[in-house]
């Protein structure tokens, strides 16, 4: 009973957040609704006794990934409400409807057909039963470092390669060009007075020393 009530509230939080992500006109508000959805999913995980997944859901998704989203949104300056009348890609809206509908159909089919197989509860394998006496943290830890040890290491390597790749790609210029980029003219920040007038202090380009 308690599980049902908690699921009901969790589902309401998730759906409200998901609708908010789509409906909100401001990208930052969308990100906030996304956090709401992620927290709702964490609640559902707790109800399913997947405490570790719930914690990871908050630490990794809500705590790290959406933070990066917000950084990008704020730094790129796309945090103003956008005009939704303009379509950036032609034919994108009907395509989105078709793809969304097929995704929904897939999800419904999966839930209807594969309920037992999806959770593993009904599979009869005692290792996959929920009441085998050890916590989910121990179970995940054991599986991760025995059965899936290679995959785990490869994922770690992949992430490291990703980070190094990002650094290499953004540093593809030669060092001499970078020095030119740092000339004062390019770090000139525009600023506005409170009443909106241009309050910018003009910064002259400093001539580089010839030597």
């Amino acid at each position, binding site marked *: 009973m308690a599980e049902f009530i908690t699921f009901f509230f969790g589902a309401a939080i998730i759906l409200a957040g998901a609708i908010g992500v789509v409906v909100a006109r401001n990208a930052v508000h969308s990100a*906030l609704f996304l956090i709401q959805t992620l927290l709702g999913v964490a609640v559902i995980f707790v109800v399913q*006794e997947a*405490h570790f997944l*719930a914690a990871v859901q908050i630490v990794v998704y809500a705590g790290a990934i959406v933070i990066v989203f917000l950084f990008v949104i704020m730094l790129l300056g796309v945090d103003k409400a956008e005009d939704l009348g303009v379509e950036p890609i032609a034919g994108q809206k009907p395509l989105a409807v078709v793809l969304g509908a097929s995704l929904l159909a897939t999800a419904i089919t999966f839930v209807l057909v594969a309920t037992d197989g999806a959770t593993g509860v009904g599979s009869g394998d005692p290792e996959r039963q929920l009441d085998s006496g050890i916590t989910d943290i121990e179970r995940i830890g054991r599986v991760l470092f025995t059965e899936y040890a290679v995959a785990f290491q490869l994922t770690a390597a992949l992430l490291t390669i990703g980070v190094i790749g990002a650094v290499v790609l953004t540093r593809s210029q030669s060092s001499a060009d970078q*020095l030119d980029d740092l000339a004062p003219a390019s770090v000139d920040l525009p600023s506005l007075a409170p009443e909106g007038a241009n309050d910018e202090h003009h910064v002259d380009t400093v001539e580089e020393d010839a030597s």
Partner: protein
Amino acid sequence: MMFAQDPLYAGDWLGDALIAGLKVLVAFAFLLVAVMLNIWFLRKVISDFQNRIGPNTAGRWGILQSLADGIKLFFKEDLIPENSDRFAFKLAPYLSLVPAFLVFAIIPIGGDFNGDDGDGVVSIFGHDTLLQVADPPVGVLWFLAMSSLAIYGVMLAGWSSGSKYPLIGSVRASAQMVSYEAALGLALASVLLVSGTLSTHAMVIDQSGEGPAFLGIENILPAWYLLPVGIVPFVVFIIAGTAELNHPPFDLVEAEQEIVGGFHTEYSSIRFALFFLAEFMNQITMGALLVTLFLGGPNGPAFFFPEGWWIGVFWFFVKLMGFLFLLVWVRATLPRFRYDQLMDFGWKLLIPLSLGWFILLAFIQVGRDEAWSTAQFVGLGVGLAAVFLALAGMLTLAIRNARNERIEEMEDAHG
């Protein structure tokens, strides 16, 4: 199913629900009063450091000063800047405050852990329960989860104010908190390696009783994790924790001389008070977590064994006060870091240090599990250290070469 799993919640559900509600209420009230006293304590102690008197008007010794300030803040005018994003501006203080409250739920603040059957269970109105709001299996991960959520409050406050200084402050805050969370997490991982559990309750039970013999004298050292984990994670945890709190010397987030008030520049009245509350509440929670992880939580020194749950509460607060005094001491002593010093300190010192210590602890743990002899320990240790030093040397060489090449390139390009 979920609620039946915990043996403490078997039986009549109404009584248990009431006990749970009571614990939440007590924790809430405790935190509010503790923040009030913490602010007063900070101001009094820092006054002593600076040869001043400090608050002395409201109540005896000025002890009600924070209460008076709080009431004043409630009745002040609440300003919302015209440029602000109203929704996020109003939401941000709560995003700071709620995680600060929630973290405290996993802290065991008392209970009798002495003896063989000392499991910290106390009886309230005939119900067996723990002196902590909740004991989730994920334990200290809950702390990491909540402290990562707390970043949103600061970040949104700065962004939604629609003004420059708050934005600078919030960018600084998020960069700082994300950076130092890594060192904090690694120090925490060292403790987990020794404890073998995430649950704060299990950790406190594990730290009860007497520790190893010292100089042949039994019963003198406590079984606190500080001894098996070592001093390095303890110090790293304190430093990284201070940085997470945006407490001096890591208070670049609200550096008055540079960026007015940082992320809460535009906040006034009760919304400002909420940020203030969250900040001081986080100090208390960080101290409580430090006590739980390293200093045995409610466990007293091993040679001192009176009975009763209250003695646990007493030791817990003695240790917590020690941490809070340390914070004030640091605030009164150290000047603020420069931004590059802050980042260098976090990334180049704290993270490698705590990671190295973590590997060392893991090495010792593996040695114990495999029952190595002393010769094996020394041999493998020296071998691994040699490999590590060789790799570190190669890395240093590579970095130096790359830097020299860059300098040459620049000199070529610019004559």
